[in-house]
């Protein structure tokens, strides 16, 4: 199945050294949820990406940059 570039987002909090990958539930073919790594660095290593892909059961690509969520009433 083709995966869009917007399938998952990566957030890195330098103070806690925690990385969180959020998989939005709007991508129906993908199980929604989050995966966390408590390691330094604001990129996923190849090993982490492989781990995430294995857990998700399909290829995962990170979207290119942080994407703001804009809420409206």
């Amino acid at each position, binding site marked *: 199945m083709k995966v869009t570039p917007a399938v998952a987002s990566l957030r*890195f909090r330098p103070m806690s050294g925690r990385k969180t990958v959020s998989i939005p539930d709007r991508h129906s073919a993908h199980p929604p949820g989050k995966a966390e790594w408590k390691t330094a660095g*604001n990129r996923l290593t190849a090993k982490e990406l492989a781990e995430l892909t294995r857990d998700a059961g399909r290829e995962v690509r990170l*979207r290119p*940059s*942080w*994407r703001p*969520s804009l*809420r409206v*009433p």
Partner: protein
Amino acid sequence: MSPERKHDWPTLKRSLARLHHEARSFLGRAVLIGGGACLFYRARLAAANDPDFRVAPLAPETEQLWLSKDLDFTGVFAGDAMELVPQFIVRDAAGREFLEVEGVRIGFAQVGLVLDPERALETARTGEFETESGLVEFLVVDPVTLYLEKQALVRRRGQPGDSLHLALLHDYVTWEVTHAAERLLAGRESLSVGESRHWLALLTDGAHRTPEIIRDPRIRRRLGSVEKDGGTIEATLGKLLELVA
């Protein structure tokens, strides 16, 4: 021929909510553009309730110009969309097929005057709102791209609605640039690296692509402390670059 139906933001929201609940595979790859996106940013600016960037009430005849005849998306071809959401296909009297959700026609545009669909997907924001059945999420074109597209449309076709959209987007982008600079200057510790980079990119991108917005007097007033120190907006951007380097 029946008169063209036009819709306000609450109606478009109902359509987006239905798509979210029944057609996430479609909404996950389509980017909202056009009048619907303008209405989204108008609602967002009104909700910000910033005294320098008020959304003024309009006369009823002007308010009519804000109504949108459809929800336009880029990033998906009409044929692919019909395969993804066949339950929303309707036929007009001439037998032509199109998509309609909650009474709102769904439109598709691959390339705008300045809009590139691949770039639009990369820079799209996530729009969201709450409904009784949960959070609705969708991708919406970023406001700078939409502003530049509207600017080109005003020059090309100059419909009254285009000028209204452009004026609102000018205010929205100016507000967002102001807000971003204030957040970055207040301290980046509270922001993630990705977020800091995003807001900085908005500022530097704005300086290159929309210099008229960077020169807006409201930005200068809000970042006045830097100006009083003998700096300029350009110097402020330089300072922000150092902060997030």
